[in-house]
């Protein structure tokens, strides 16, 4: 084995300096740099909101900025009792109801659509493109469009009608995309095995597909709920005479004068957290129950 002059053998290549040496259990410098970046990101993420939460606990002297004045639940009470042009309580209720509706519909429809997409069918690309289009289109434009449409037809816009539809046009694409990701971990052999053992299509869906996909379905539900609960642009023009919560917040934002808005922020966040907690708890419970059923009596 001879090398002609001018060729570089592996030993001579300038490799060793930049190559990664096996770690002796310690971390490379990039870890610390990235960890710092990550920490900065999380702090920046939560920081502003935490300011709001803290400031919402001021007492009657409270203003919109620091320093904090006093400690009380004054503004929370003010939020719900103060006579004002808006209707926070009602908006709350409507938002929750609408979000629940959207959640249920999103889970069912996304599940069905994802099942359809497992195999190619004529026109499936068109459906997929429409879905992406619905996701990408400016919410306000669609909202206006829906409003105009309903006007032209003569139906009134309402939070349980036109707003529901408009929100679904936003949550369904998300739901289907999440289901796509979840389905990719689903082995079609399970379905065939069920069929082989005599299960009907419905039995297969009920006994095999849904239980296996359960954590994914919970994730879709979570998406559906929070996307609806916080949805603003599409709902703005389609909600009709009664506001949902984000619309209510919006009108309060336009004339921000007191920390009651912050109190509202805290309350909605608490509600969101409760929902997330429940959803995650459900997923953990499902996984645990499967693990606990094993391992003997």
């Amino acid at each position: 084995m001879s090398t002609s002059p001018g060729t570089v053998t592996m030993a001579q290549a300038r490799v060793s300096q930049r190559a990664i040496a096996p770690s002796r259990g310690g971390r490379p410098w990039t870890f610390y740099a990235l960890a710092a970046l990550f920490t900065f990101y999380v702090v920046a993420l939560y920081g502003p909101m935490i300011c709001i939460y803290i400031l919402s606990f001021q007492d009657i002297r409270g203003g919109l900025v620091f320093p904090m004045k006093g400690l009380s639940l004054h503004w929370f009470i003010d939020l719900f009792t103060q006579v004002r042009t808006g209707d926070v309580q009602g908006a709350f209720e409507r938002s929750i109801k609408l979000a629940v509706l959207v959640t249920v519909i999103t889970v069912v429809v996304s599940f069905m659509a994802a099942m359809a997409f497992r195999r190619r069918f004529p026109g499936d690309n068109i459906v997929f493109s429409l879905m992406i289009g619905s996701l990408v289109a400016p919410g306000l434009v669609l909202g206006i469009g829906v409003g105009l449409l309903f006007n032209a037809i003569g139906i009134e816009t309402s939070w349980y009608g036109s707003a529901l539809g408009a929100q679904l046009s936003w949550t369904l694409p998300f739901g289907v995309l999440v289901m796509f990701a979840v389905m990719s971990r689903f082995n079609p052999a399970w379905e065939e095995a069920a069929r082989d053992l005599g299960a009907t299509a419905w039995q297969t869906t009920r006994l095999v597909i849904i239980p296996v996909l359960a954590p994914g379905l919970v994730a879709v539900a979570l998406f559906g709920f929070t996307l609806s609960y916080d949805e603003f642009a599409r709902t703005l023009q389609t909600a009709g005479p009664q506001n949902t919560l984000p619309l209510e917040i919006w009108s309060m934002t336009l004339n921000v004068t007191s920390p009651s808005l912050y109190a509202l922020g805290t309350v909605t966040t608490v509600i969101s957290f409760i929902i997330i907690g429940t959803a995650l708890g459900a997923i953990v419970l499902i996984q645990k129950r499967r693990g606990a059923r094993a391992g003997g009596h």
Partner: protein
Amino acid sequence: MAVQRGDIELAGLSKSYDGIHTVVHGINLKIPDGAYCCFLGPSGCGKTTILRMIAGHEDPSDGEIVIGGENVVGLAPIQRGTAMMFQSYALFPHLSVRDNIAFALRVRGLSKTDRYRQTDAMIEKVRLTELADRLPAQLSGGQQQRVALARAAITEPRVLLLDEPLSALDEQLRVQMRLELQRMQRELGITFVHVTHSQLEAIALADMVVVMESGQIKQAGAAREVYASPRDRYVAEFLGGQNVLSGKVEAIEGGRLLFAQPDRKPLSAPLRANIRVGVGDRIDVAVRRDDIELLRPNAMISAQQQSALPSRVLAIEYQGSFVKVMLDAVADEEFVAYVPERTFYRDPLVIGDVVLATWAIDHARLLDRS
């Protein structure tokens, strides 16, 4: 003879996709009831497609599948009396062993007590009683296979279909599970149709081996038949254990033919009753690897009884009870001798040694043209 419950007949069975891509070309085969039948072939030869068509998970483009006397084409899997054991088992990940096995009974509407009673009996049979509450993810490969087997068997099928059941296992486990499969088949007494790409597995397990290539059956018969008396070059090479020599017939005389190739001297092979040859034909002749005796160059041989090819040793592989010696006797083709271990070590060879590869002329076997 009356038609038995689990015998299978495939008649003109074909499968093609979009009318262009044909995977299975008009297969005709009869599998007797209670037989262990292995479909053997490389990936893409159509063996799995045939299995799935018998199972009902795929529809044939043409032809009939008759099980126990009735044509099952068009029937749902469960109506055929077949059950399938899937590759990588496809155990329901969210159900325990017991619930996996009981699944078929559950979808039939049996009450919990009833189905658990039957299931527990089956669990006993496959010796998984202590693991009945475990999830598939907590089981070893061999245990998973037993669950898959039990799950299929509980439907009391007349034919059990196995899709490469041992491929996912490691060597040692594979050998163990082979015995398990054999045992189960004898106990259940039903027809097993087992698809594999491993020739060792097929000849170890099967009463009937079906060798396939590109959607066609090359040879179907008992294991010994297929291994020791291959019909053509493809079967000979796929089953291993044979050297295949090709050449042009130069002379036919006294029950033997002489065939030659430009780069080596002519060799003899006995004629076979049902194969016609003429001078000038191109033929293939198979010689079993374990029929070849390696002698030092100055050894005495009888030209009337033995063929001999001088060659050089290219490689040596120790295989325990025999030694595999690769020779360059034939240009561009493998020529291998299986030498019994003790015989080899009486006068061991090294790479580069010149030897005489000899065999009894009568042990050479004329093959059909593929």
